[in-house]
């Protein structure tokens, strides 16, 4: 329990001191995970919408596969992306191993299935409710899909937040493909792992508290925006 007290003290010192290193690490964490969640949404949302609305052979298999991929272990994703981007691998020519781009790619691979699978479920439920009315009003597939996405935007926003949460919290993927290079690919989670391995547990825990506070603050912000929007649109 003493370490917990030390940890809170360490967290407070970190936040109050606006430590330049900490700012850089936090900034990179946000840059990597936010970019990853944006790209994952651009890929996962249309995919989820298409599967929700269309009927085609192999649809059920695809749904089961997507759902299963939600549980991809981050460290395995990291290893796979590493093998892909390594100089000895197929995409080695790009030379992006041990850079933030590699980290973004790994996190995108990790959370795109989450966004696709969960949005598929949300949109399929919505389609069941809306299908007849939308078709009656003359909406074709693409328009209907976009209307569904707009109408379920609050649920979809929660899904995007879930994806972001998973991305910013993981360490396995970014550690392997990023290499935890000081000043270049070091993010909050890899710093926590590093400080733990150096035995500086209060600092590691303090950083953990900073990370959690960041995520809570972000969620609170989104909740406020959502409240305001719901009051306007119902």
């Amino acid at each position: 329990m003493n370490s917990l007290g030390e940890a809170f003290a360490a967290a407070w010192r970190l936040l109050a001191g606006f430590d330049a290193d900490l700012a850089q690490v936090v900034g990179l964490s946000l840059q990597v995970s936010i970019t990853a969640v944006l790209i994952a949404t651009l890929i996962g949302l249309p995919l989820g919408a298409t599967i929700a609305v269309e009927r085609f052979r192999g649809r059920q298999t695809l749904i089961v596969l997507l759902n299963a991929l939600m549980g991809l272990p981050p460290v395995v994703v990291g290893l796979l992306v590493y093998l892909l981007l390594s100089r000895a691998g197929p995409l080695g020519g790009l030379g992006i191993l041990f850079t933030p781009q590699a980290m973004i790619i790994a996190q995108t691979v990790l959370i795109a299935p989450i966004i696709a699978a969960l949005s598929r479920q949300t949109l399929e439920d919505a389609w069941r409710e809306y299908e007849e009315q939308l078709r009656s009003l003359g909406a074709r597939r693409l328009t209907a899909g976009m209307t569904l996405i707009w109408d379920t935007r609050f649920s979809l926003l929660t899904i995007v937040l879930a994806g972001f949460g998973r991305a910013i919290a993981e360490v396995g993927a970014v550690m392997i493909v990023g290499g935890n290079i000081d000043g270049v690919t070091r993010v909050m989670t890899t710093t926590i792992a590093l400080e733990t391995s150096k035995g500086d547990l209060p600092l590691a825990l303090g950083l953990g508290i900073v990370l959690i506070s960041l995520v809570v603050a972000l969620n609170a912000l989104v909740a406020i925006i959502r409240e305001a929007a719901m009051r306007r649109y119902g």
Partner: protein
Amino acid sequence: MAIVRRAIVRGAMLALTLCGVLTGPVAWAQQKFITVASTTSTENSGLFKHILPLFKTKTGIDVRVVAQGTGQALDTGKRGDADVVFVHDRVKELAMVKEGAFVNRHDVMYNDFVVVGPKADPAEVGGGKDVVAALKKIAGTKAPFASRGDKSGTHAAELRLWQESGIDPVDGKGGWYRETGSGMGATLNTASGMNAYSLTDRGTWLSFKNRGDLVIVVEGDRKLFNQYGIMLVNPARHAHVKKESGQMFIDWVVSAEGQKAIADYKINGQPLFFPNAGR
């Protein structure tokens, strides 16, 4: 299915554009750099934070250190994912130079290992100067021992010492001999939590903050010396290796200037590494 494919392609194209746009500026800013694969113990000791800025001031080259276990660092170099490798397993390094994965190997520095253990010292090895004898005693009393078990340089050194003592610790695996399969810090955390003996490099120990009841029990034995080497990834095998900048770093590290920088790195007034290039 064609509709699904179209949706994916459209999304992916947009995604790649975004990826480039959002992170492009970051990549462009750091063109002059080399990647050095080294070990977690070296990184954790803080040596790089001390000497790399000096190199950057002199040459303008950014040195990006990827810290992994020795085995992984050597593999990273072999694959061509780094330009220079800086580890401490002389036997393996020389073998891989012979095999052609690396070139231009130089000795750089050495540090020593120490045996740490609980203050209570159940195996009664405290104050000793003979590490092999100490290991025999630890195995004899079946006192708990935490090993890295991760094919690192430290792990390799530990196994060589067990071999010399004539004891195969595998017999005690799961009992008094615990393999953590992780880095030095994590292993020390485990040792601290279990009040176990362990073999660690002095550098990690000096900056380790979670000692619990552990203290140094055996040190100074010549057999505990740990030699570091630096080498260039063979550019004949990997055309993209930054051989000029990489060689500049190697040359600097073994030069009088670099060697002095290493010797100047101290924790609590104590040096961690002893430069011995070209000796």
